[in-house]
């Protein structure tokens, strides 16, 4: 955590800040989602409360806060109340391990401190995020079984079966990116994606100066598979089978209302943010600017430069979040057997093919010595 009071307090402040960033993103995203869906469907959306309907979120929050507290008697109290809390934790922990900007140095009381622009760096980034997000199934199972409602249980079982099925495709699509970068650490990956596209082709160093050195150019298929699998992982449309209202009412949160419902939403949007941040980090250069980072670095102080790169990261993440919303209001929902077929019979083989292909290509590109 730190050696003295200043370092500890900055670290805790950073932790709270990053967590609140995730939580505060939710009302904004809900607004974007409602206005965006209205735009796509040629409606108006919420536009009465405040400019562009922006304060609608505040009104909604107050409404959620004053909803009646209700617990169905058939439910199991501990599981019923623990589930929404548990829905927050994996997203928050995963988001906290992603670097949002390069580390920055602060001088205080004549001492220089170095702070990471992330809550903690384990050095095994990817595996930690996969491990933590695999705990996300428990919030669903707690909610489903604890509610004492058969629709909840069915929704939870569907959701967790779907999550674990797509976790395979997700995990396998990342093997390609590991083969390219050869590291688990997010910050090392981002470092490698700095500068123009450069690689060794048959022993010849090659540089393509008009493209940034982003992972997407090495792993186009991997990116498509990864991004599609994250849609299923976050239970978003077109994979929002657990909430198929025609069949299952509202899935695992049928019996939830008020703030507890909102917490599931925070969890869902948190997962979306984690997925977007991961896609950015793996395939789109993380916080690195595509061009002109040298001149910017010289004209700003290191702290300001860190914040500029943080803005760059946030922009990329927001683009991905908009894609999430855009897809939700554009594509129809899958049927459950189609969903499972897609995960097991289409994406898993393609991800395997991607792995083998990448391995062959890496051998071809790097076997200069032999």
């Amino acid at each position: 955590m730190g050696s003295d009071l200043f370092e500890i307090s900055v670290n805790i402040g950073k932790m709270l800040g990053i967590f609140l960033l995730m939580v505060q993103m939710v009302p904004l995203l809900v607004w974007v989602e409602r206005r965006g869906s209205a735009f796509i469907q040629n409606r108006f959306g919420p536009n009465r409360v405040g400019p562009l309907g922006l304060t609608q979120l505040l009104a909604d929050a107050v409404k959620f806060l004053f909803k009646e507290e209700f617990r169905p008697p058939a439910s199991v109290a501990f599981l019923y109340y623990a589930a929404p809390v548990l829905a927050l934790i994996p997203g928050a922990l995963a988001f906290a391990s992603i670097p949002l900007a390069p580390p920055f140095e602060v001088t205080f009381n004549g001492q220089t401190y170095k702070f990471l622009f992330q809550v903690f760096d384990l050095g095994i980034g990817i595996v930690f995020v996969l491990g933590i997000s695999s705990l996300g199934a428990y919030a669903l199972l707690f909610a489903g079984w604890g509610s004492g409602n058969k629709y909840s249980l069915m929704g939870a079982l569907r959701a967790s079966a779907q999550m674990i099925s797509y976790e395979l495709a997700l995990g396998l699509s990342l093997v390609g990116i590991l083969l390219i970068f050869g590291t688990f650490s997010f910050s090392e990956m981002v470092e490698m994606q700095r500068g123009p596209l450069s690689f060794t082709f048959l022993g010849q160093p090659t540089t393509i100066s008009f493209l940034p050195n982003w992972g997407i150019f090495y792993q186009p298929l991997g990116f498509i598979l990864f991004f599609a699998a994250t849609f299923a992982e976050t239970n978003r449309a077109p994979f929002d089978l657990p909430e198929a209202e025609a069949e299952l009412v509202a899935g695992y949160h049928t019996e939830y209302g008020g703030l507890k419902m909102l917490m599931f939403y925070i969890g869902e949007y948190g997962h979306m943010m984690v997925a977007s941040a991961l896609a950015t980090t793996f395939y789109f250069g993380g916080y690195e600017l595509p061009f002109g980072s040298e001149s910017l670095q010289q004209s700003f102080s290191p702290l300001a430069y860190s914040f500029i790169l943080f803005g760059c990261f946030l922009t990329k993440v927001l683009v991905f979040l908009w894609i999430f919303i855009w897809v939700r209001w554009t594509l129809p929902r899958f049927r459950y057997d189609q969903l499972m077929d897609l995960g097991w019979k289409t994406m898993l083989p393609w991800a395997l093919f991607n792995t083998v292909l990448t391995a062959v290509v890496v051998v071809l590109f790097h076997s200069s010595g032999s």
Partner: protein
Amino acid sequence: MAEVVIFYVFSAVTLFGALGVILHPNPIICALHLVATMCGIAGLFFGLNAPFIAAVQLMVYAGAVMVLFLFVVMIFNLKQEGKHIFSPGQFTNGLKVLFGGMFAGLLLSSILFKINNFGYLTPDKAAPQFEVKNIAKVMFTDYVFSFEILGLLLLVIPIGTVALSRVRGGTHAK
């Protein structure tokens, strides 16, 4: 200081969860306690400077095996077992507990013996023995045949379970 906190917090979670597993009458709650145990063990692995193994523990046990356990318990739709969660037979149960106690005493004494003899062991925290790259190098050179046999095992297991479940041709055998 950090390692003291890590050790006590996670070993408390681990042992509490283990107690819940063997004492709670409801199998679902037992499974949930086991989840806590798995997370606690992952934390202990963190404390032992093995974050990769901790993450594997989280992914495989907490993320996969326990989900399977919960699915099965939910399929079974088991009711609480009531007071009789242990096998009947007071004499045999007493014998079992006695045997368990004797085994615990044996373990404890051997650990104490170990500490008295090797108490000076201090880990080299900078040593790279748990770097994933080192693990991988050993695994793919020294243990390569074990690794391939594991692949064979992982081929046989799903075939066996699917054959056991007899689902050829649909859920409710048409």
